[in-house]
C-alpha cells in the first residue's frame, strides 16, 4: 500500500481534459515534485486531491483511504494540507488568528490552539509579525503564512502550489530551507513549482506532465535530461 | 388657556396614508368648527395626531405615548383593523376610552372591552344594504366573490358568503388575491368561465379599477358587479377605470346626499377647503370628532371612567347618521347604522338603494356591450 496514490485520474472541463489518465504514487517522507508547462493541469491535480472539483474518473487514495467525493474540509481532516497558488489570507484577521484558525483543526480548546499556532509561527519565522492583520503583509510573508497555516492543521501530506513564485532569489533560498525543515519534521510534501533550481534542490522524485498527461518521471537528474521535458517545459539554456 | 387633549391615531405616512390623509383633514376641519363654537364648555379642544404609519407596533407606541406621556383623556382614530386592534389593546388595558371610527373587523367590538367604542358598522354589515336589493330586484342564482386578502377583505368575504348561503345564492368561486397586482386577468378568466350572475369584489382603490378595466377587456359579463365599499366609492376609481366603472354597484356606509343633517354641507365644505373630494372615511372621521366633543361636554370630569360613561350615554345625530352605542349580536359598544347601495351612472356616483333615499333610480338590467362600447 502506498502512502498516497492516484490511479488513472481524469478531470474534464467540458471537452477539455485538464487531467488525463494520471497515475502516480508518493512515498511517506519524500518530497515529490510536480512540474509541467503552464496549463498542464498541476493546480487541477491539487484541486482534485483536496476535493474542490469532482473527479471525472479514476481515484485518489491516501493512507489506504479513498478521497474521491470527500468535501474539502474532510480531506484536510484526513491529514492533507495545502497552499494556494493565488494566496488566500483571511484578510481582516491577524497572522496569529489566521494560524490559530487552522490549529483548531486538531483541538477545540483555545489555549491549545494558540500554543500550537505560536509554535508553528516560530517554526516559520513569523513570530515578529503575529499581530499584523493579514492584509498588510508583503507577498513573501503571505506565502510564509500560507505555509504556516497549512502546517498548523497538522498535516501528514502537504501540497505546495508555487510558494516561491515572486520571491527574490534570497527569499527563495530561505524558502527552500523552510521546506526542508518541514520535511525533516516528518511531513510528506508534493510541490508544484516553476523555479528549477528549487525543484532540483528539493525533490526526491519528479513527475512532469503536459496536457494533463505524464511525459516523464524519475529523479531530478533524469527528468532534467529527458528530451520530452526539455522540449515541452525546460527549453534549452 | 387650558385645553382638553384627545389623541388621534391615523396612518399619515406609509401605504395607507391616502385614507389617513382624508380622515386627518376631516378631524382638523371638525376641530376648527368645534372650537369656533366654544370648544368643550369654554375650554379649547385639542387633537394630538399621531402617525401609526400603517403598522400595529407603531400604533401601539403611539397609543402608549398619548396615554402616558401626553395624558390624553381619550383616543380616537384607528384606521386599519390591525392597528386598531393594537391601539384597542393598550386603551383597554390602560382604561382609557377609545372611539374607533374606521377599523371594521367584527372582532374589535366582540371582545367585551368596555373602553372600546365603535362608530362605524363592522365589516359584516357592509353588504346589508345590498341584501334587500338582491332579494327584491336582481334575484341572482350564482355569485363569485373576489377579495383582497387583508383583514378587511377576508372577513368581509366570509360574511358575504354566509349572506349568499342564507339567500340561496350559490357561490361558484371565492378567491383572494394579494393587493397591488398588475394583472388580474388569470383570475378574471376563471370568473368568465364560471359565468355567475353576480360578481362581488372587496378591493381597495386601484385593484378595484384594474379589476373592472380588465373585466371589460376580457368581456366578463355577469348580471351585475358589486363592490364591497372601500375602493369602489372613490372618485379615483371612476377616474382610473373610466367607462369600465360605469354601472358598477357598490355597498357604502355613507353618501353625501343622505338625509343626515350637515352631510351635504360637510361634503361641500371639504371640497372647498382642500380642493379634493371626500367620501365615507372622511365622514366617519368628521362625525367621530363631534361625538368626542359631545361626550367631553357631557362628562362629569375628565377622568377616564367618567368619559367612558359619557361616551356610552351618547345619543346624537351626525353627518354620518345617528350615533348610539349598544350591544347587539355578539358586539358591545357598537353603533348600529344602515348601509346603502350606490351605483356609478354616467360617471357620477349615485345613491340608488334603498329606494326612499335614492338620488337616482338604479339601472338594471345592464347591457354591458352598450356600456362598454
Amino acid at each position, binding site marked *: 500500500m502506498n502512502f498516497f496514490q492516484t490511479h488513472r485520474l481524469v478531470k474534464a*472541463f467540458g471537452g477539455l481534459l485538464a487531467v488525463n489518465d494520471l497515475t502516480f504514487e508518493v512515498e511517506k517522507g519524500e518530497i515529490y515534485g510536480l*512540474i*509541467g*508547462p*503552464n*496549463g*498542464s493541469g498541476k*493546480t487541477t491535480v491539487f484541486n482534485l486531491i483536496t476535493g474542490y472539483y469532482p473527479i471525472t474518473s479514476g481515484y485518489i487514495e491516501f493512507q489506504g483511504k479513498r478521497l474521491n467525493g470527500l468535501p474539502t474540509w474532510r480531506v484536510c481532516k484526513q491529514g492533507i494540507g495545502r497552499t494556494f*497558488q*493565488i494566496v488566500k489570507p483571511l484578510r481582516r484577521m491577524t497572522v496569529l488568528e489566521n494560524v490559530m484558525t487552522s490549529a483548531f483543526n486538531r483541538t477545540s480548546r483555545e489555549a491549545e490552539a494558540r500554543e500550537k499556532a505560536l509554535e508553528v509561527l516560530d517554526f516559520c519565522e513569523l513570530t515578529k509579525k503575529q499581530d499584523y492583520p493579514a492584509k498588510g503583509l*508583503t*507577498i*513573501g*510573508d503571505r506565502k510564509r503564512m500560507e505555509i504556516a497555516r497549512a502546517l498548523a492543521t497538522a498535516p501528514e501530506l502537504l501540497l505546495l502550489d*508555487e510558494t516561491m*513564485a*515572486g*520571491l*527574490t*532569489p*534570497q*527569499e*527563495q*533560498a530561505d524558502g527552500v530551507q523552510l521546506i526542508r525543515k518541514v520535511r525533516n519534521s516528518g511531513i510528506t510534501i508534493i510541490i508544484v513549482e*516553476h523555479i*528549477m533550481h528549487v525543484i532540483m534542490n528539493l525533490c526526491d522524485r519528479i513527475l512532469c506532465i503536459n496536457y494533463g498527461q505524464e511525459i516523464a518521471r524519475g529523479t531530478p537528474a533524469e527528468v532534467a535530461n529527458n528530451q520530452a521535458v526539455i522540449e*515541452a*517545459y*525546460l*527549453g534549452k*539554456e | 388657556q387650558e385645553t382638553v387633549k384627545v389623541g388621534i391615531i391615523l396612518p399619515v405616512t406609509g401605504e395607507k396614508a391616502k385614507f389617513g390623509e382624508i380622515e386627518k383633514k376631516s378631524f382638523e376641519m371638525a376641530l376648527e368648527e368645534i372650537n369656533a363654537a366654544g370648544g368643550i364648555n369654554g375650554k379649547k379642544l385639542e387633537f394630538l395626531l399621531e402617525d401609526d404609519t400603517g403598522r400595529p407596533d407603531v400604533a401601539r407606541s403611539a397609543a402608549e405615548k398619548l396615554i402616558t406621556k401626553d395624558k390624553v383623556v381619550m383616543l380616537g382614530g384607528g384606521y386599519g383593523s390591525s392597528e386598531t386592534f393594537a391601539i384597542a389593546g393598550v386603551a383597554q388595558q390602560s382604561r382609557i376610552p377609545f372611539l374607533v371610527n374606521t377599523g371594521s373587523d367584527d372582532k374589535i367590538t366582540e371582545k367585551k372591552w368596555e373602553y372600546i367604542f365603535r362608530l362605524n358598522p363592522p365589516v359584516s354589515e357592509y353588504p346589508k344594504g345590498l341584501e334587500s336589493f338582491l332579494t327584491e330586484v336582481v334575484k341572482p342564482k350564482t355569485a363569485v366573490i373576489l377579495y383582497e386578502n387583508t383583514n378587511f377583505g377576508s372577513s368581509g368575504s366570509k360574511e358575504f358568503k354566509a349572506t349568499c348561503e342564507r339567500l340561496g345564492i350559490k357561490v361558484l368561486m371565492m378567491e383572494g388575491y394579494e393587493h397591488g397586482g398588475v394583472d388580474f386577468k388569470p383570475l378574471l378568466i376563471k370568473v368568465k368561465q364560471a359565468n355567475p350572475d353576480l360578481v362581488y369584489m372587496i378591493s381597495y382603490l386601484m385593484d378595484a379599477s384594474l379589476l373592472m378595466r380588465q373585466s371589460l377587456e376580457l368581456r366578463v359579463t355577469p348580471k351585475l358587479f358589486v363592490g364591497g365599499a372601500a375602493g369602489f366609492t372613490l372618485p379615483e376609481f371612476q377616474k382610473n377605470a373610466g367607462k369600465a366603472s360605469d354601472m358598477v354597484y357598490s355597498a357604502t356606509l355613507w353618501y353625501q346626499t343622505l338625509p343626515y343633517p350637515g352631510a351635504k354641507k360637510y361634503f361641500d365644505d371639504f371640497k372647498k377647503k382642500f380642493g379634493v373630494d371626500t367620501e365615507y372615511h372622511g365622514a366617519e372621521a368628521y362625525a367621530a370628532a363631534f361625538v368626542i366633543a359631545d361626550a367631553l361636554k357631557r362628562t362629569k370630569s375628565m377622568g377616564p371612567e367618567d368619559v367612558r360613561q359619557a361616551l356610552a350615554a351618547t345619543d346624537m345625530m351626525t353627518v354620518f347618521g345617528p350615533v348610539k352605542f349598544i350591544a347587539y349580536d355578539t358586539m358591545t359598544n357598537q353603533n348600529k347604522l344602515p348601509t346603502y347601495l350606490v351605483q356609478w351612472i354616467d360617471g357620477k356616483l349615485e345613491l340608488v338603494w334603498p329606494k326612499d333615499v335614492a338620488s337616482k333610480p338604479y339601472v338594471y338590467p345592464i347591457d354591458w356591450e352598450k356600456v362598454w362600447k
Partner: protein
Amino acid sequence: MLRMENVNAGYGDVQVLWDVSFEVKAREFVVLVGANGAGKSTIMKTISSLLHPTSGTIWFEDQRLDHVQPYHIIDVGIAHVPEARQLFPEMTVLENLEMGSLCARAKPHRKESIEWVLDLFPRLRERRKQLAGTLSGGEQQMCAIARGLMSKPKMLLFDEPSLGLSPLLTQEIFRLASKIHGEGMTILMVEQNVKQTLAICDRAYVLENGRIALEGKGRELLENEEVKQAFLGI
C-alpha cells in the same frame, strides 16, 4: 523618454517610495530589481497614475504624468502589464485583447494586431474563445502581455512578467522582450528572475526599501558583490 524626479508616494499614511529619481531613455531596456515590498510595483503604478505621488514629478517625453488620470496613460503611449495579470475574467481571450486596443492610436489596426499577438502566443489562439478567468496561470500571463501589446505603445511597463511561468515560457518571454526591444520599443521591467534579466537589459536600478540604491549596466550589476549577496543568494 521617461523621467522620474524626487518622487515620494505611498498608500494612505504609509510612505513607500522615498525620493525616487531615475530615467529611461528612448529605446532603452531598463530593469528594476529589489526585494519583496521594496516598492517596485508601486513605482509602476505611480507611472501609470494608478497612484499619484505626494511630491515629485514624472515626465514622459514632454508631458507631465504625475497628476493625469490613469485612463489617459495609454493615450500617451504607455502600456502597463500589471502584476498578477489583472485580466477581465468573464470575457473571452479575444475580448480581452480587443480591450487592449481601445485607444485611438491602436483601434484602426485592431485586426492585424490580434493576428500578430496570436502568432506570438499560439497557445492563446487555441484558447481564444475561452473565458480568461478559467485560463491557467501562465496562459493568463500571456494574455495580459498580449493585451498590453495590442495598444501599440511607445513604452511597455512589465511587472514581473515571468511570475508563475514555466522555464520555457520564461525564456520565451525574455526573448520576446528582447525582440520587441530590438524593434525599437522602450521597456521598463520589474523582475525577480534577476540573473536572466540583468543579462539581457541595457541598464538596471536596484531598489531597497523604497529608495534607489544602485544603478548600472546590466552585466556590471551581475558582477557586483552587493547584488550577488542580496539577490543571487550566492
